[in-house]
């Protein structure tokens, strides 16, 4: 399942990128630089999506328990961290030719940086706790708290920097612009989703090893007992 999704993602990404780079026409105002958007926007969508899924797994892991939720929680956190790091780099590459600077205190870019650091913090917490139970609970709580924080960060940065509010790129709605965007969006989703499934397997195996051979204790009848 994981490998299949990865393969689907690669095909979608290759075709979407080919379309975006060579088929789509030049955008009227941004010129060729606009083509960065065909990979940038899908990355942004999926970073948020993966973080949201991680939050869902965190909630389920707290509410229901179960190591499957915890393993997927870990995998999705890592995937979201990779995507948000990539997003910051892409944002810098986009900012340079359009605004003349590598970094811009745009609310979205800044929020992404904060989100990346928060995700790194949670992953660090996971690696610093040896007891699998505590690791699962604590990191789930940290994920929920960080998830609530992201919109607050976004709004506070927007207020903080209200002068820069209007630098959203010109809307592009016609089909030649939509097609590569959609292809790449589903491509990143399939690729990172597949990788998250594989990564969750790694986490699940590590937890299984930590928990020892038997997850259930021996039945009471098997013990030496005398009354």
């Amino acid at each position, binding site marked *: 399942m994981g490998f299949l999704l990865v393969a689907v993602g690669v095909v979608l990404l290759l075709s979407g990128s080919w379309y975006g780079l060579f088929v789509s026409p030049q955008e009227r105002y941004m010129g060729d630089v606009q083509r960065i958007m065909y990979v940038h926007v899908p990355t942004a969508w999926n970073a948020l999506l993966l973080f949201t899924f991680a939050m869902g797994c965190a909630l389920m892991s707290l509410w229901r328990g179960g190591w499957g939720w915890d393993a997927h929680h870990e995998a999705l956190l890592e995937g979201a961290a990779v995507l948000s790091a990539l997003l910051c780099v892409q944002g810098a590459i986009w900012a340079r030719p359009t605004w003349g600077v590598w970094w811009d205190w745009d609310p979205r870019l800044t929020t992404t940086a904060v989100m990346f650091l928060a995700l790194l913090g949670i992953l660090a917490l996971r690696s610093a706790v*040896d*007891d*699998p*139970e505590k690791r699962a609970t604590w990191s789930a709580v940290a994920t929920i708290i960080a998830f609530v924080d992201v919109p607050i960060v976004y709004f506070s940065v927007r207020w903080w920097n209200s002068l820069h509010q209007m630098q959203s790129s010109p809307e592009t709605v016609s089909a030649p612009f939509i097609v590569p965007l959609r292809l790449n969006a589903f491509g990143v989703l399939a690729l990172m989703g597949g990788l998250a499934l594989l990564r969750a397997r790694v986490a699940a195996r590590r937890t299984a*090893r*930590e*928990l*020892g051979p*038997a997850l*259930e*204790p*021996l*039945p*009471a009848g*098997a*013990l*030496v*007992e*005398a*009354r």
Partner: protein
Amino acid sequence: MTTPLALDVQGLARRYGGRWALSGVSFSLEAGQALALVGRNGSGKSTLLRLLAAALRVHAGEARVCGADLRRDADTVRRRTALLSHAAYTWEALSARENLVFTSRLLGQDRPRERAAQRLEQVGLAARGDDPVSSFSAGMRKRLALARTLLQEAPLVMLDEPYGALDPPGFRLIDGIIRAVRVEGRSVVMATHQVERAAALCDRGLVLEQGRVAWQGPAAELPLKSGLLRGSEEGA
């Protein structure tokens, strides 16, 4: 007529990470009786006591503690038990008296100062009651922790290595307290290496080995049984 049970434990188990510190532990204790827990270091005595005091989450099995379900009604269990643990549970920067007064207030008791003074007297710390705990010796910390445990006036008193770090007068203090608690009709569970003392003080005995019940029976037979176990291990 059946006596109510202070403890009714069925297949209790707890793991730390991947290691099952306790598994499939089953026993019962009638109200008003005293149980001696014996076993080597790491055999699971402390884990069992902390589980029964609802300090740790149960990973498998069931237990009723003083009539309350340990898994579903941990708050009631906490109200009905008092645990003298390995850790002293004290705030080092506060004085012994302050430690007891705050514990009493958090328990919602009336006259906390009076109660604290009374317990300090009982464990022989009245003279040092206003010194910060950080200046205490290990034995004095043990006495303070004992005072804290007694402050709770719980129907089930659990003592983890009560004799540890104490001097001979301390030993007699513990013996006296256990007898006094039993006179009041309360139950006692005690984990200790002092097998002879435990045999003299308790009704029931239970030997733990590697997190399992290796033997249980009348406390009077404990010295023999635990001696056999220890001997066989040393031979192996």
